[in-house]
């Protein structure tokens, strides 16, 4: 078997195993949701553990503030628990809880003072091992001595300059890695709208961060 054919075969096998994992994940989530609906808090605890990192990361990137993200994550999961009876399974639990978290966060941001208080989390150690990021910092910026923490701060400031809807699509697509279709289901608009918002948001970010880009 040639190298290319082997690659194709291994890619197909990987895709198949990913699909199977997703199907298993969905079935497991559906069972946990049913148990949580009956008032089983142990099952709900498992659901929280499954989705907490993704929800928290989204809300953190929306607020650029750890305390706000923490409060909003807690509120979103509590609200979802109280609303479980209304979850009919028409969308995935993942989409449904994302929608609750995102709606609450957008309402919160509209009420929040215009002056944003950044409370940024630390970078994990892996960032130093990411050659692309290291090269981006050391080679592509006019200020070669730029520190990682400074870049992080500028990045968050630029994000906060975007409107909530534009920040949301950048967060969900470019940081969380969701597809346009998934984002459309969460924010209740079509994928074309998601694409156009993403394009505009990137243009804005590029303008704000021009010193740190080529």
């Amino acid at each position, binding site marked *: 078997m040639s190298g290319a054919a082997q690659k194709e075969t291994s890619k197909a096998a990987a895709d198949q195993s990913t699909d199977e994992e997703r199907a298993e994940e969905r079935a497991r989530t559906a069972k946990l949701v049913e148990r949580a609906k009956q008032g089983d*808090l142990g099952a*709900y*605890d498992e659901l*929280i*553990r499954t989705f*907490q*990192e993704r929800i*928290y*990361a989204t809300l*953190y*990137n929306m607020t650029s503030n*750890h305390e706000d993200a*923490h409060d909003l*994550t*807690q509120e979103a*999961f*509590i*609200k979802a*628990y*109280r*609303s479980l*009876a*209304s*979850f009919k399974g028409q969308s995935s639990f993942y989409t*449904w809880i994302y*929608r*609750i978290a995102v*709606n*609450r966060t957008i309402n919160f941001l509209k009420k929040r003072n215009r002056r944003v208080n950044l409370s*940024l*989390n*630390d*970078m*994990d150690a*892996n*960032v130093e091992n*990411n050659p*692309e*990021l290291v090269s*981006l910092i050391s080679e*592509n910026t006019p200020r070669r001595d730029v520190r*990682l923490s400074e*870049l*992080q701060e500028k*990045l*968050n400031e630029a*994000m906060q300059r975007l409107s909530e809807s534009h920040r949301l699509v*950048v967060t969900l697509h*470019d*940081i969380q890695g969701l597809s346009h279709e998934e984002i459309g289901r969460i924010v209740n608009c079509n994928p074309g709208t998601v*694409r156009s918002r993403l*394009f505009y948001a*990137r243009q804005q*970010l*590029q303008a704000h*961060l021009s010193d*740190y*880009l*080529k």
Partner: protein
Amino acid sequence: MEPNEDNFEQLRKLLELKRHEGPPPGYFEDLPGGIIARIEAEDARGASAWWRRFIPGFDTSPAMVGAYGVIVASLVVVGVQLAGRATPGGEPADLQPGNALAISEPGTADDPAASLQPAMAPANLPIMEPASLAVFHERETNSSSAPTGMFATPSLNGTTTVERAAFPANR
């Protein structure tokens, strides 16, 4: 590849930096316990009141909000209409003065003033006016002088005859 995707390659790399931002170590170990504790605490103090169960889908379903709004607005409209019927301009037939007996007993001999209220008088009886009041009215209309005061009592001098009010012996 999407249109203009190449233009943003550098930006996307920069945004990857945000994937490395994370909460303090151990944060995700404690978060579920904190959420469950809050749920249990709310349950314990009866926070799941009736109105919480009434509005479960507000965050996820705008249609639900609209439906509740229409119901509340309808109740307000019905309430206003019912209130309008009870006002003087829109009294129901059984509240007309002539039918006052149906709902209200006129005054007795011990309480004659009650039967002097025109609105409360029965339709088949003439409205009675005490003679003393009639005399007072006559004095007031014939007098050219200004009244002594808004709340001045009529003077009971020798020219005035005071009569007791006459009431029908039997009604």
